[in-house]
C-alpha cells in the first residue's frame, strides 16, 4: 500500500512541475487522505537544495483554550521559540517527552515566563499533565518553508524561489512515514498529495467536567 501511494505521489509531482514553470513563486498543495478526503493538519516542509542562507525561525505560539491546545499541529523551524499562552481559567502543565524537545512548564496560568525554544528538528508531542486528553504536535523542521493544511486540506507556499526542493510530508496519524520527494519549482504550481492516515478524531475536551 505504501508503495502504491509513493508511486501516485511521484506522478502528481511530475504533473504539477510542468505547470509551475508557467506561474512561479506560488505552490498550492491540496492534501487528501487515502479516501480522497481533505486532510487537515498535515505538515509539508520544503527544503531547498539550492538556498545557502537559512532564515531564523519565527516565533510561534500554541495556546491552550477551552482545555485544548490550539492549533493541533504547528510547524516551526528549528531554533524557533514557541510560546504556550494559557487562555483558560485552569492551570495547565504542558510537557513533552519527545526526543526532539523535552520540556515541561509546570502548572501555570496566563503566559509562561518564557517561550520554549525548539532547537532540534523532529516531532514534539505536547501534552498536559493534568488534562490527559489534551494533545498537540509541533513539527520542528530544518527549513523555514513549512505549512500546515487547513480544514480543506489546503496549504500554500508563496514567494518561493524557483529551484529544486525536497518535500517532506508528515501527519500525526500517518500510517507510515512519507517518503521524502524531490520537487522542482518554477512559477505557480498546484499540487495534490495523498497520505494514508489512521481514522481518528482530534482530541477534544470532554463535554462533562466541572462546568468549564
Amino acid at each position, binding site marked *: 500500500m505504501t508503495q502504491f501511494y509513493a508511486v501516485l505521489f511521484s506522478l502528481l509531482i511530475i504533473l504539477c512541475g510542468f505547470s509551475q514553470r508557467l506561474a512561479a513563486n506560488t505552490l498550492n498543495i491540496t492534501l487528501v487522505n487515502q479516501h480522497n478526503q481533505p486532510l487537515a493538519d498535515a505538515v509539508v516542509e520544503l527544503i531547498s537544495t539550492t538556498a545557502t542562507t537559512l532564515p531564523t525561525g519565527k516565533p510561534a505560539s500554541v495556546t491552550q483554550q477551552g482545555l485544548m491546545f490550539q492549533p493541533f499541529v504547528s510547524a516551526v523551524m528549528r531554533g524557533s521559540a514557541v510560546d504556550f499562552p494559557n487562555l483558560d481559567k485552569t492551570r495547565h502543565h504542558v*510537557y513533552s*517527552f*519527545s526526543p526532539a524537545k523535552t520540556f515541561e512548564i509546570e502548572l501555570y496560568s496566563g503566559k509562561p515566563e518564557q517561550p520554549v525554544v525548539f532547537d532540534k528538528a523532529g516531532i514534539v*508531542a505536547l*501534552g498536559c*499533565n493534568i488534562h*490527559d*486528553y489534551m*494533545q498537540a504536535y509541533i513539527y520542528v523542521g530544518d527549513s523555514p518553508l513549512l505549512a500546515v493544511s487547513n480544514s480543506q486540506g489546503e496549504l500554500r507556499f508563496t514567494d518561493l524561489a524557483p529551484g529544486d526542493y525536497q518535500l517532506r510530508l508528515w501527519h500525526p496519524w500517518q500510517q507510515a512515514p512519507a517518503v521524502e520527494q524531490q520537487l522542482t519549482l518554477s512559477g505557480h504550481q498546484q499540487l495534490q498529495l495523498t497520505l494514508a492516515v489512521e481514522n481518528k478524531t482530534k*482530541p477534544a475536551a470532554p463535554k462533562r467536567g466541572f462546568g468549564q
Partner: protein
Amino acid sequence: MRFRSLRSKLIAILVLLLSLFALATALATLNSMKRDSLSQAHDMLNVASKVLRQALQIRATQLSDSVSLLATDFAFRRAVATAEQDTIASVLQNHGSRINADLMLLLSPSGDLLVSSDAQLQPADITPLFAQTGGANASVADILSLHGQPYQLVLAPVRAPNLIAWAGMGFLLDKPLAANIKAITDLDISFVIRQQDAFVLQNSTLTAAQQLALTPSLAQLLQQNGNLQQERDQDYLSVASVLDQQQHLWAVQHLSNQRWLSNYQAFRQQLLLIFGAALALALLVAFVFARSITRPLDALSQFARRIGQGSVEPAPTAGNDEIGLLGRTLHTMQQDILQREQQLLFNAEHDALTGLYNRAAVDRLLPAILAEQDGSLLQLNIRHFKHLNDILGFANADKLLVQLARRLTTVLPKPLLLARLGGDEFLLVYAGLLTPAQVQAKVLLLSENYPLEQSLINLKLCAGLYHFFAGGECLSDALRRTDIALEHARHAPQRIATYVQGQDESHQRELQLIRDLPDALQNGQFYVVYQPKVDLKQQLCNSCEALIRWQHPKLGFVPPDQFIGLAEHAGSINLITQWMLQQVCKQLALWQQQGLQMQVAVNLSVQDLLEPSLCQQISALLAQYQLSAANLALEVTESAIMQDADTVVQQLTALRQKGLSLAIDDFGTGQSSLAYLKQLPVHEVKIDRAFVKDIATNSNDALIVSATTQLAHSLGFKVTAEGLEQHSGLTALSQCGCDTVQGYYFAKPLTSEAFFAWQQDFSQRPAYWFNGEIVL
C-alpha cells in the same frame, strides 16, 4: 420356602409386601434425591464456574484500571521517556510494587520487549497478549502461563501523550486469589497448568493429600473440555474452566461430594430408620393379628379333636366373626354327632323290628349280670315260625313278632334283660332260679290269642331254661347251654326243657366228631364191615351190605348213627361216601382175585345223589378196579328220595342205566307216597328191621311185611328183609315171599376177612342155617 402355620404365612406376606413397598419407595425417593442432589451439585459448580470467570473478569478490569492509572503517572511516563534501561527497570519495579504486581515489563509501541522484571521472559511469550491490543490504545488483560506460573497480565499504553510504550504488569493467580474465590463461591479451587502434557496443580485450596488424589484424574477432566466430572472413587465433583487461549491454564473448582452426599445419606438413614420402625411395627401388628386369628383356631382345632374323641364339652367361646361362626358350626356338629352316635348306638344294640335289645346288646350287657348274681336264662322260640311266615306272609309274621315283643315287655314281670336274638328267638334274663312250672306259666301267657287279620292266632312256644350262678359262667357257655336247652325243648312234650349238666358235653362231642372226620378218613380210623344178604330161595349168599365203622383214638368206637347224621348236617357226607366206594371197590377187586363173586351194597345219602358227578365217579372207580357194574349196589333211604324226588329219580335212572343195582333202604318207615314208588328206577326194596325183628311173634308185622312184599313184587322189585334175629323169623319171611334176608341171625357186620370166612362156611352148609336154630 414353605410355611407351616397360618401365622408365619400372614407375617411373611405382610413383611414381604411392606418390604417391597418400602424398597420401591426408598429406591424411587433416593434415586430422585440423588439425581436432584447431583443436579444441584452440577448447577452449583456451573454457577461457581461463572462466578469464577466473573471474578477473574472483575479482577482483570481492576488490574487494568490500576495499570492504566499507573501508566499515566507523570513520573512514570517521564522515566519511561528517558529510554534508559536502568531507569525504566527501576520505575517499573517501583510502580509495579505499588499495585503489587508480580511481573513488570515494558514494550515498545510496536510490541518489542524492552524491559522485563523476569529475565527469562521471551518476547514471544507476550506476543499473543500484545496482539489483542489490535493497534488500539486501550489496555488489555489476559491470563497467561509464563514459565509455569499463571499470570493475569495487563498491558496498558503509556502515552506522552502519544503512545510511547506499553507497560505490562503481571499478577499471579495465587493462593490469596484462590482463597478469595473460594470465599465467594464456597468451593475449593485449584489452578492447573499444562506442562508438556502433564498437569500440575498450583495454588489449590485443597489439602496436599487431596491434591495428590485429584492429580491422576486431571487429564481426563481437562480432555473433556472442562465438563463436569464425577469422580466416583473420589470425594469431589470438579469443573474446569480454561483460562487462557492456549489452553495451558485451567481453573478447576471442586465440590465436595460429602456436601451433597451428606444430605442424601442423612435422608437415606432416615428412610432406613422409618422403614425399620414400620417393619418392626408391622411385624408386631402381624404377630398380634395372626395370633388373634390362630389362637381361636388352635382352640377350635383342639376342640374338634376332642369331638373326635367323643368329648361333650361346650365349644370354646368366640365372637361374631368367621371364627365365631366356625366355633358355632363345630358346636352344632358336635351335637349332631352325639345325636347320631346315640342313634347308631341304639341301632347297634336294638332290633329294628321290635325295638328290643339285639344280640350285640346281649353280648355287652349279659356278662355283668352273669358275674353279679344267680339267675335264669330263658330262651323262647316260636315253633314252625317258618311255616307261619309262609302262611301269613312276612308282613303279618313281623306283626306277630311285634305283638309278641310287646307282650314280653308288658305281660311278663320285668326281666333283667330282654332281647330278640334273631328270627323267632327271644332271650329273657331273670334274677333267681325259675322252675319249669314258672316257665310254663309265662309261656302260657305268651302263647294264646294274638289278633291278626280278624282272627286269633295261637303260638307254639318252646322254652329253653338255663340256671346260672354268680361269676361261674362265661357268656358264650351260658348262651350255648340255653340254646341246647331250647333244642331239647323242641322235642320235649311240654316244649319246655331245662339244661341238664352234660348236655353241653355231648354237644361238644358232636362238634369234635365233625371236626375230626376228614382227618380220620385219611388216618385209617375208619374201616368197612360187611353184612351178608342171604337168598332165601337159592339159600345162597352172593351179596352183602357194606357198613362204615369209626374207631376214634380218643372217643373210642363211634356208632354210625352219631356221625352219619352229623356229617350230613355238616356237608361232609360226600367224603365218607367216596371213601366207602373206594374201599368197597378195592375189596371187590381183592375178592374177585380170591374167587369170590359178591355184589356189595353201599349206602348213599341224599346229598350224594344230588351230586351231579356221582355217576362219573362210580364209573371211574369201576374202571379203575376192572369191576362190572353188577358188582356194585347202591342203597338209598326212602326219606332221602322224598327230599328232592325229581332230581334223585333222574340220578337213579342214570345209575341204573350204568348197570348198577339200586335199593330203597328202610322201606316202610318214611312217609313215602306209593305214587313215587312206582316211578322209582330201583330193583329192590329193603323192609325196615322194625317190621322184621318180631315178625315171628307179631302177626301185624307179618301182615305188613307180607303186604309190602306182595306190593313190591307186583311193582317188579325184589324184597329184602332187614334185621332177622331169630330162626323163627326166617320161616315167616319165607312165607311172606321175601327174596333175601339180612340180619344177626345169619351174621352181624363182619370185617372183610371174617366175611370171607363166613361166606365160605355158609356156602358149604347152608342147610345148617335154614333148618337149625342158631343161638346168638
